[in-house]
């Protein structure tokens, strides 16, 4: 098992781990518990995403080198690594946000349902509709109410949901773990919510358009521990219907929420993916010395 995770192996791994892995560190035990919760029998919904040989450049600066990762449907993958190693850059190549930077260039393929999203003639708005994104800083639309924020995706993408708006509103807010807190003030402006609530509102907003994949770039880094836990709960729920890729600097968080962990590192040159594997293996017995140093807090 090197850089590509095969989706067929994944559930067996999860099962094995939960039974046989002796937990040596607290991190790996959290990961093992988490993995045991995921039912092997439940065929996950959503679609997988596969990155093949991704490189990214900003002008002449080679920011990311040859990253291949397979995100199986219904799994949560955590991307960890020190600042500046290209995690954000990588995640932004996955839903074609990278191209908004004028000097940006890339190479490689990103397959959604087996189709390259960079293929000529692809409707990029449809791609971003299927691959949602939650940003580091909560960014609810300031001119809209809470309810309007949740439904804004439908309006912006000019699509209709099969459900009626009230049901959809409740469903999305419930899945994002925010419903009970805001159900009496859906007409209030989103600016009045706390940071953690705003971030969950942003998650609810991305759920309304029913994405297959959800990208999260350090979604909890500006939040208090309580809000962070709520969002982690939310992620666990969401993984039953979609594929989630989350960048995090918080090792405990990676251990708690993810099935797989990929470690990125830049040794002064372009960022590279050093190692990927089931989360508890990554934390208990990583294959690469650099991963070991990082997860045990010896550098980075």
């Amino acid at each position, binding site marked *: *098992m*090197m*850089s*590509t995770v*095969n989706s067929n192996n994944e559930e067996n791994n999860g099962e094995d781990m939960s039974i046989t892995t002796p937990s040596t560190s607290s991190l790996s035990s959290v990961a093992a518990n988490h993995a045991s919760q995921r039912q092997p029998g439940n065929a996950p919904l959503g679609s997988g995403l596969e990155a*093949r*040989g991704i*490189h990214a*450049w900003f002008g002449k600066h080679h920011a990311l080198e*040859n990253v*291949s990762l397979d995100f199986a449907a219904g799994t949560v993958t955590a991307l960890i690594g020190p600042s500046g190693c290209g995690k954000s850059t990588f995640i932004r190549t996955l839903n*074609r946000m990278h*191209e908004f930077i004028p000097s*940006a*260039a*890339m*190479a*490689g393929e990103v397959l959604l349902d087996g189709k390259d999203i*960079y*293929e*000529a*003639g692809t*409707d*990029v*708005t449809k791609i971003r509709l299927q691959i949602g994104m939650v940003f580091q800083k909560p960014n609810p639309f300031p001119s809209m109410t809470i309810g309007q924020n949740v439904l804004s995706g439908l309006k912006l*993408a*000019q699509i209709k949901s099969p459900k009626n708006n009230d049901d959809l509103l409740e469903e999305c807010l419930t899945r994002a773990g925010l419903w009970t807190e805001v159900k009496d003030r859906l007409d209030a402006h989103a600016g009045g919510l706390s940071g953690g609530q705003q971030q969950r509102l942003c998650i609810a907003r991305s759920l309304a358009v029913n994405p297959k994949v959800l990208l999260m770039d350090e979604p909890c880094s500006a939040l208090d521990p309580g809000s962070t836990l709520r969002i982690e709960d939310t992620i666990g729920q969401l993984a039953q219907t979609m594929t989630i890729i989350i960048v995090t600097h918080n090792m405990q968080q990676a251990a708690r929420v993810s099935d797989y962990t990929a470690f990125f590192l830049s040794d002064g040159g372009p960022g590279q993916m050093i190692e990927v594997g089931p989360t508890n293996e990554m934390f208990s017995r990583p294959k690469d010395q650099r991963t070991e140093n990082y997860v045990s807090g010896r550098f980075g």
Partner: protein
Amino acid sequence: MTILSNSTPVTPQKPWKVSKKQQLPNLFLIAAAVVASFVIVAATPMKGKLAYLLLFFVIGTTFQLALSWYKRGRAAAADTVAGAVMMAGAFIVFLPVASLLITTIVKGSKGFRPHIFNHTMAATSYSDPLTSGGLIHAIIGTLFLIVIATAISLPLSILTALYLTEIKGKASGFIQFLVQAMSGVPSVVAGIFIYAAILLTTNLRGSTFIGALPLAILMIPTVTRTAQEVLNLVPNELREAGLALGATQWKTVATIVVPAARNGLITAVILGVARIAGETAPLLFTLGTSDKINWNPFSGGQNALPYYIWSGLRDGTEGGINRAWTGILVLLILVLSLFVSARIFGSRKVK
């Protein structure tokens, strides 16, 4: 299960750029729209360049709309229409500007010869052949006017803007109102004001300095209001960060806020200079006049490019009008090079 080991170097690509092949249908549609508009103009009583343009726009847009609807659905079609409307708007603005530039270049180049940059009109009259005379005295006059008007108005404007955005003193409302009112003052009124207030009441005569005063009056509201806008864009966190380090408000403003707004402030000055560089009316009362170079801004009449243009047009002879066009061309080049150099020298290097 394996790392893709690419031995061949990977090259940066931009797969999001529309490739030549993808543009082919578009090119084809544009060609079809051109042909269709020619056919329609020939077959119907519609006449003239405007008819071609209008038809081309309407037909071209319709084709594009049909293509994007067919390929990507209704939302994409709406996108195409919005894009076409914006293109049309930009084109409508671009057309007169381009026409103006081309006319100026064509007509102005007749008298645009090297010797105009080291001759004055001291020994030449406007109707003389274009081989004699020049406008270096007017260029120098205009540069003098811009420098003096900027030197007067820039500190006043920036300080006013700082008062309005940083100090927010008691008089802010009133000053804001005055600035607003000042920006509506017609330039000729500014000229008459200086004429009445200074030239009629003292025994001073028209000079470069007196001529720069109405220009400064015109420049102040433009620079103040633009500066105010850009200072308001500086995030409050920066001010708080400065204050939290123990800086006084003045130090924070001078070392953090103003440098952060630097590029915007340069834009403010550029807009101010653009406002005054071509002003003629206020100069008629205040500048005096001169046919030769006058290096003393405080005594004796002066010339300026707008004034030179006005004189040439008023002369009315073919020579005079040609000289006026050349003056316009030189003024355009002068103002443009001022702006470009302000941008180059003013904007700090990023990193």
